[in-house]
């Protein structure tokens, strides 16, 4: 009785299992006629087990006979997986960095500059940065990427990558072997956006919006693309790692970004002339609060700018990250400290301006110097840029309204030269002998000639920026005109150029 009951119970269990595993539409199985089903299921199970055993045995035999071939293929598979993992890691960091660098322009630079102008120009100034996020993206995709990084001559890239032809998932081993070429392209795009946006600080509060757009498109083609190609492009005249004639060390764009934009800014300030009422009229920043938020966003974004320039997520990125942070810190202390000594008070604007100056100066050096060198570079930059902005500008009387030259031109030039002094082969063995052993990098390591290379790089950046910018200013001035009318300038760019106000004052009902 008991055994029958027990069998009956198990049978029901199996029935229930079969019923549960069948789709609802097939209907239930009546318990009464299920004995034969159980028997068939058991036979089938036994047959399957036998087949499986045979399969394992044959596989084992095959494995024994072709052990070496199998090990090789597994090794190849592992290598592929390791490379994929590294590529994914690098790509994750590079996409993050690209986003960080875009954040430097909007809202970082837009807020930094927007706070420094008068209330009536806050939107116009922010729009200058924002417009470049859109305009340069289009030109970069259509032709500028090709002119910067496509194969060409020593001075400018060719047209092989027009419309991003050939820029896809496959890495370009010359530039960044572990990330898709498309990642490299979009990362470089963010640099092409912020560089012209920096210039806008010099002609703030008086340039026509239409003139700005035309100027910037031409500037990207005539100044940025050639400079980027010379320093970073394959076969570029100044390229340090791809066989340039004068190997200039510029890790993240001291010459390409800051010297070109800063010097062009000075040319613009001189060409356009002063703002109406400058310097007699009082034109203090309308909101240091906005500038403060912008500067702090710039500081954070700069980690993508500099550490991202390692083009991978390894220890070089860490080294550049640390150098960037350290230089910004001492530069903030340097500028605010200089003010404290001279004016009796350290200002907030001084602190954040110093931080930005330090970030500018460390940009070319970030992937080549040790943390203590970064502290030195930052401190020198903070004090030097304060002196440029507070003393030199006042002496010559040009109206570089938001100090694009005083911070980016001066700080970038200083940083590019100091890179030749402090560069260390222990951080980044960029120069190697025929056997692959690292050679001295900077002046302090005994490579005095590097300072000459840095000077050549800086001189070319200055020359290109001056000539290119002058030509473009003449062209834009002759065609659509550069400045807004005096009436519009007094009214403010927000209303005259965009028909809006940044701070619409409404009586609450």
């Amino acid at each position, binding site marked *: 009785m008991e055994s029958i009951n027990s069998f009956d119970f198990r049978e029901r269990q199996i029935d229930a299992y079969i019923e549960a595993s069948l789709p609802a539409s097939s209907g239930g199985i009546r318990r009464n006629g299920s004995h034969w089903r159980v028997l068939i299921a058991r036979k089938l199970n036994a047959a399957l087990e036998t087949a499986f055993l045979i399969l394992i045995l044959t596989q084992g035999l095959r494995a024994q006979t072709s052990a070496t071939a199998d090990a090789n293929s597994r090794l190849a598979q592992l290598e592929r997986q390791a490379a994929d993992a590294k590529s994914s890691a690098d790509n994750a960091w590079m996409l993050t960095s690209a986003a960080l660098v875009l954040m430097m322009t909007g809202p970082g630079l837009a807020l930094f500059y927007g706070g420094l102008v008068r209330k009536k120009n806050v939107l116009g100034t922010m729009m200058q940065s924002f417009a470049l996020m859109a305009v340069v993206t289009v030109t970069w995709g259509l032709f500028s990427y090709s002119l910067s990084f496509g194969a060409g001559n020593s001075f400018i890239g060719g047209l092989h990558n027009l419309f991003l032809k050939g820029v896809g998932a496959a890495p370009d081993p010359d530039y960044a072997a572990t990330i898709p070429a498309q990642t490299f392209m979009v990362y470089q795009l963010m640099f092409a956006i912020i560089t012209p946006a920096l210039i806008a600080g010099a002609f703030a509060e008086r340039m026509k919006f239409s003139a700005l757009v035309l100027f910037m498109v031409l500037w990207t083609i005539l100044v940025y693309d050639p400079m980027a190609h010379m320093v970073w492009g394959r076969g570029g005249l100044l390229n340090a790692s791809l066989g340039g004639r004068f190997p200039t060390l510029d890790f993240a764009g001291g010459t390409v970004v800051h010297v070109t934009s800063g010097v062009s800014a000075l040319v613009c300030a001189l060409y356009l002339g002063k703002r109406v009422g400058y*310097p007699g009229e*009082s034109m*203090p*920043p309308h909101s*240091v609060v906005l500038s403060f938020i912008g500067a702090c966003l710039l500081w954070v974004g700069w980690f993508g700018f500099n550490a991202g320039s390692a083009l991978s997520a390894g220890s070089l990125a860490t080294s550049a990250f640390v150098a960037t942070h350290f230089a910004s810190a001492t530069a903030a202390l340097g500028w605010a400290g200089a*003010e404290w000594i001279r*004016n009796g*008070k350290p*200002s907030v*604007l*001084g602190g954040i*301006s110093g931080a930005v100056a330090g970030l500018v100066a460390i940009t070319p050096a970030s992937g080549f110097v040790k943390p203590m060198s970064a502290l030195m570079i930052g401190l020198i930059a903070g004090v030097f840029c*304060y002196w440029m*902005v*507070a*003393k030199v*500008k*006042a002496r010559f009387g040009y109206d570089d309204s938001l*100090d694009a030259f005083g911070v980016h031109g001066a700080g970038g030039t200083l940083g590019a030269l100091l890179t030749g002094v402090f560069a260390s082969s222990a951080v980044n063995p960029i120069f190697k002998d025929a056997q692959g052993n690292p050679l001295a990098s900077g002046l302090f390591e005994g490579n005095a000639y590097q300072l000459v290379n840095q000077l050549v790089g800086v001189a070319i950046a200055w020359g290109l920026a001056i000539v290119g910018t002058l030509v473009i200013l003449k062209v834009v001035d002759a065609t659509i005109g550069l400045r807004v009318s005096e009436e519009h300038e007094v009214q403010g760019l927000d209303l005259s150029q965009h028909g809006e106000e940044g701070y619409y004052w409404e009586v609450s009902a």
Partner: protein
Amino acid sequence: MTKVEAVIQNSKLEAVKTALQEIGVEGMTVLEVRGHGRQKGHTEVYRGREYSVDLIPKTKLEMVLADAMVDKAVQAILGAARTGKIGDGKIFLSRVDEAIRIRNDERGEGAL
């Protein structure tokens, strides 16, 4: 009826308001204003450029009172707003011809 205008330090608004309420002043208008008397302004320095700021933020109270209240109100303001330093502000008194309550066209001191 007399209009009392008092320009005071921003930080003294609460004290003055309380003192006026205590003596029975029922209404007032408060304005945020900028200006200067004999008090010198201050200088601000932005990136090495000095700006002298001579219009200093102040608070202005306006109220129209029945003549019987005016002396008490002036004393209340003097007591609450005075620090004894330059920049404490000023009080101006002027005659008011008429007061009209918009809600019911009531005229004179009854409209205050």
